[in-house]
């Protein structure tokens, strides 16, 4: 045990002392809010400076009206269509909408001309606009007056609540839960790759520098592997903790600079849960609204689950990365073995986008958050939507079983692999090592 500790210590110190570690640790919390702030700034500027687009309208039906909006200026033009088209094509205006004489029971032949392909949303928007007007025309035809028409328009806003077993109700906001899920899942995804790759690189370096044989004559290869995996993990945790503290401090300082008063504890909490720069939030009121929601989030639970799933997932994949590193001589050789490791990570990320966010409690979301290879990413993505305790417990238990299994598997490959130099390794050889006695 003492020797594992020595290995962990060396792995930790040798990485933390590097200049690149110092640089990344300091720059990321500075850059992250700066990039978000910059993007928000640009988006606002973009919105402000956006020129009003001119749309030509050739309406032969005479039943539709187009009111100018913030972004579009409608100009009624004269027909026929050919001359309207000719005029439009020489202009630098945005689009031409052609509405022929319409049979309102079967409106056909509406055309949209533009210099570039319009987005789906845009066409859909116009379709909605025209459909509403035709509906109004039909309703008028059936004998409704304007007043009645106006009273038909109803606006509904649904407030959603989470009802617990004890009957407490809590306001839920799918925007915030989505944000939490997205950030948490994505962070685990990045960490798995970043720190997993570090483990692999470390092993390859050790192999290349030929120090391995000296070390394994004093430490059992399995202990050496565990030491390396844990050493790199502790670097990761140290880095994340420093980031969190720095981001909180910087964000708080930033808020103070913008004249927004906020309780530092709440700021810290919000930063932990969303890990996003505060500059994205523009007004005091919105902050207050977001804060009430954020305050309802069980921060401790989410943070501790995050730490658990991060460590579990990292151990599971870190061991596999170590095994790949031990089997090859150069990072280039490692490519062929990376696929099966990367696949489940990518599946988890895609599952997060395709299944969890649209339907967090669906069958696919459930299974992806239970199976150890995808659960770290997917479970963290689901967690904000409220996952039953038994599912979390099952997922955690399986993750523990999962990383014990991969550690064992990786250990068997590692002990043989690190002593092999220049051997041509393929999956068959790996299988042989797996079975080989020591």
């Amino acid at each position, binding site marked *: 045990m003492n*020797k594992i500790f*020595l290995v962990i210590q*060396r792995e930790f110190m*040798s990485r933390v002392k*590097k200049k690149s570690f110092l640089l990344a640790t300091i720059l990321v919390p500075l850059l992250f809010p700066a990039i978000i702030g910059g993007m928000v700034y640009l988006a606002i500027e973009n919105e402000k400076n956006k020129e009003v687009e001119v749309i030509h309208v050739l309406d032969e039906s005479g039943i539709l009206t187009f009111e100018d909006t913030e972004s579009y200026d409608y100009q009624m033009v004269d027909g026929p269509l050919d001359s309207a088209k000719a005029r439009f094509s020489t202009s630098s205006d945005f689009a031409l909408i052609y509405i022929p004489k319409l049979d309102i029971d079967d409106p056909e032949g509406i055309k949209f001309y533009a210099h570039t392909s319009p987005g789906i949303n845009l066409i859909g928007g116009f379709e909605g606009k025209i459909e509403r007007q035709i509906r109004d025309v039909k309703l008028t035809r059936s004998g409704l007056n304007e007043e009645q028409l106006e009273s038909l328009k109803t606006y509904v806003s649904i407030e959603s609540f989470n009802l617990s077993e004890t009957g407490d109700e809590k306001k839920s906001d799918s925007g915030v839960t989505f944000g939490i899920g997205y950030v948490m899942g994505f962070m685990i995804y990045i960490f798995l790759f970043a720190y997993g790759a570090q483990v692999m690189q470390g092993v390859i*370096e*050790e192999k*290349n*520098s*030929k*120090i391995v*044989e*000296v*070390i*394994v*004559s*004093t*430490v059992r290869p399995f202990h050496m592997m565990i030491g390396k995996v844990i050493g790199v993990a502790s670097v990761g945790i140290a880095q994340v903790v420093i980031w969190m503290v720095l981001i909180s401090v910087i964000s708080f300082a930033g808020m103070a600079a913008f004249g927004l008063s906020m309780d530092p504890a709440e700021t810290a909490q919000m930063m932990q849960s969303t890990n996003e720069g505060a500059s994205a939030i523009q007004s005091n009121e919105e902050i207050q609204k977001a804060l009430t929601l954020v305050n309802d989030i069980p921060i401790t639970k989410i943070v501790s689950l995050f730490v658990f799933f991060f460590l579990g997932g990292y151990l599971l994949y870190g061991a596999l990365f170590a095994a790949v590193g031990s089997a090859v001589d150069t990072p280039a050789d490692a490519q062929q073995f990376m696929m099966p490791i990367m696949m489940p990570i990518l599946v988890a990320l895609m599952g997060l986008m395709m299944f969890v966010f649209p339907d967090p409690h669906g069958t696919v979301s459930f299974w992806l958050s239970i199976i150890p290879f995808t659960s770290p990413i997917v479970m963290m993505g689901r967690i904000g939507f409220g996952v039953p305790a038994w599912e979390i417990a099952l997922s955690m238990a399986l993750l523990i079983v999962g990383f014990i299994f991969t550690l064992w598997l990786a250990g068997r490959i590692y002990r043989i692999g690190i*002593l092999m*130099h220049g051997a041509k390794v393929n999956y068959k050889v790996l299988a*042989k090592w797996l079975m*080989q*006695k*020591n």
Partner: protein
Amino acid sequence: MSLLKVENISKSYSEHQALTDVSMEIPEKTIFGLLGPNGAGKTTLIRIINQIIESDQGSILFDGTPLNADHIRNIGYLPEERGLYKKMKVGEQLIYLGQLRGLSMKESSKRAKAWCQKLEIIDWWSKKIEDLSKGMAQKIQFISTVMHEPKLIILDEPFSGFDPVNANLIKDEILDLRDKGATIIFSTHRMESVEQLCDHVAMINKSQKILDGSKVDIKEQFRDGSYFVEYKGGEVKSGSGYELISTEDIGRGLKKSLIQYSAEGNPNDLLKQLIGQVEIHSFVERIPSMNDIFISLVKGENPELTEA
């Protein structure tokens, strides 16, 4: 008294027999040469002694007790494929490796410094390994092998990469360590260093031990009773009890002949016969070098002797 007793060790990999029933005793406080061609099984045996891999059969006694994890701190191992952490500093590295062999941090630091002073690399203490020359890195590896004062030191090709000056320095250190009571297993292909250093020799070929004993005994055993004679005036011919193998001119009117006599016979009798024929300038027995023995054994030129 033997420090290490290897008993009937066998080891096979999936389709390759690495060691077959190998036994040997390594006497205390000697330099024991472990010889053999590439792929004979030396490294496998060394790895088994270092507990890096396990044998399929057989056992090893270290100082009378079965080899176990506690012995790691009593062994120092310099592998043939060796290196250091390139990004680590000399001092840190030595302290770390000393700690892995069971020294406390303080003790490890003290001894590492003392050794660096002794081998005149103390100025490099805070330099990174990647800034060092190969020879200096080799010195650091040597220090890391011996700094915890192990009872058993295993050196696999220790001189490769050293210039002659540093090779001599290390050679002296090795002899010094033996005189202070360490037992050294020395694996090499360089027969001249075996001649210079080894007290005992064992040879492995094709997974089997084919030779084992003290260097003096082995040489005695491989004496074949042949003699070099340098002479003037005429030419030696084969005679009764001896046979001429070859003759060459070596200048100044001298000739040199190799004569096959018998290992048991009295060389005086041969000399008496030769004096009658020519003017003798030198008469010397051909003692087989370790190199000759190695080559003849590996090539299987003397299969009847491999039983010895």
